């Protein structure tokens, strides 16, 4: 028989959640050690996702509260790489001067949720919550970035696609996102059709001065899919139509059919290409 409680429609009250030990490390080194040694450790950043997840059944053995790790906050540019600390809030990232190293990045970050969420939600929490409706994975894929993990076993740099496959080292902590600053790297992020689809476009020039591009399409329910663009020529519509030939026929969800995604995605991509071209002046 259909049981509402068993269907998961009624979440536990906090009163039903057993209390857990909390560790608040003072450094990444201590945090890595706590992740290695604690019983069933769960990192905790802004809580905008985790608190709801706990009420929906996620179990906490030991909560590793990251708040004191100031070294994981902020956006920096060094050695041709832009890095975003895992604890950087969306508002902090959008307001950081260094985000200006990639035109369009600050604007994209300023669209991740509304202000109350942007003031607490972090870049690392967004990726590690692994919800297709969260957008950091789309931006990281478009920009060709990686996420850096630290664990007692060692360190690893993973793409957003790797994170979807849970390829990070066991008991690891995401410490930062790194984006190599390819020549004149720029971003355009279009959410006008969210939640049905969103699309990020990155454009840069390679060492021989040729323009390169990557478009990333995602929906509320589908993981981001990257389309490499052939930017030779100036016909934005033609470039977009050619890129969309590579979209797999099964890239579709109950709300957004494949035909519609191809048409809408190509139309938006043509507009994005034109916008980036205009922004370059």
């Amino acid at each position, binding site marked *: 028989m259909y049981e509402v409680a068993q269907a998961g429609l009624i*979440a536990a009250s*906090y*009163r039903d*959640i*057993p*209390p*857990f*030990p*909390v*560790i*608040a*490390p*003072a450094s990444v080194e*201590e945090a890595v*050690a*706590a992740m290695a040694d604690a019983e069933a450790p769960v990192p*905790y950043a802004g*809580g*905008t*996702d985790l*608190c*709801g997840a*706990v*009420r929906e059944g996620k179990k906490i053995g030991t*909560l590793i*509260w990251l*708040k*004191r790790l100031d070294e994981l906050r902020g956006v920096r540019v060094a050695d041709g790489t832009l890095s975003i600390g895992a604890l950087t809030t969306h508002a902090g990232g959008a307001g950081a001067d260094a985000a200006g190293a990639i035109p369009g990045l600050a604007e994209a970050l300023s669209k991740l949720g*509304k*202000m*109350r*969420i942007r*003031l*607490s939600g972090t870049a690392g929490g967004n990726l590690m919550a692994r919800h297709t409706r969260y957008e950091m994975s789309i931006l990281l894929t478009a920009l060709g970035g990686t996420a850096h993990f630290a664990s007692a076993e060692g360190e690893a740099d993973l793409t957003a696609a790797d994170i979807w496959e849970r390829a990070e080292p066991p008991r690891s902590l995401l410490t930062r996102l790194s984006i190599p600053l390819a020549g004149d790297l720029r971003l355009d992020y279009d959410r006008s059709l969210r939640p049905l689809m969103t699309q990020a476009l990155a454009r840069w020039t390679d060492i021989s001065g040729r323009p390169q591009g990557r478009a990333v399409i995602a929906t509320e329910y589908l993981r981001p899919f990257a389309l490499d663009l052939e930017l030779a020529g100036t016909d934005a519509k033609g470039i977009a139509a050619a890129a969309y030939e590579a979209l797999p026929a099964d890239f579709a969800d109950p709300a957004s059919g494949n035909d519609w995604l191809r048409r809408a995605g190509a139309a938006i991509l043509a507009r994005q290409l034109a916008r980036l071209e205009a922004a370059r002046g």
Partner: protein
Amino acid sequence: MAERLGPRFDLSFTLNGASVSVSTTTATALADLLRERRDGRGTRLACERAVCGACTVLVDDVPRASCAVFAFEVEGSTVRTVEGMAEDGELSPVQAAFADNAAFQCGFCTAGMIVLTEALLARDPDPEEAAIRDWISSNICRCTGYSLILEAVRDAARRKRETAE
């Protein structure tokens, strides 16, 4: 040195200007802790998922959904709720603007909207329309269609600026 908390612990923080010490557990949400107090029912609970914002309070001046904040996080912090907005029995300019603009119907979202508005105006006393909309759309109102709330926020900003001059 890493700090450790056992499942039950003593929590101290400042609530609306007064020192508070309570024994609580690590799984307790700030919203529940506040609402268990006789003077804490202004903070509403609805979705309990950080979505609706009815439970918004200021933690060290940052507006946060108190249903998505574990109480242990506010150790040593300053928490302000809607109960702490009035001064000497006088409604704050934001509260008065909400009342005078009839910016509510059922009133369930109102405490969260007022707290959110306080946070916005503390950061930006003369916010642009786009900023007002961005902030206020953080919280959900199922009744008003928002236009009266937006009017109250604009009015509150005017009142606060006039008081400051």
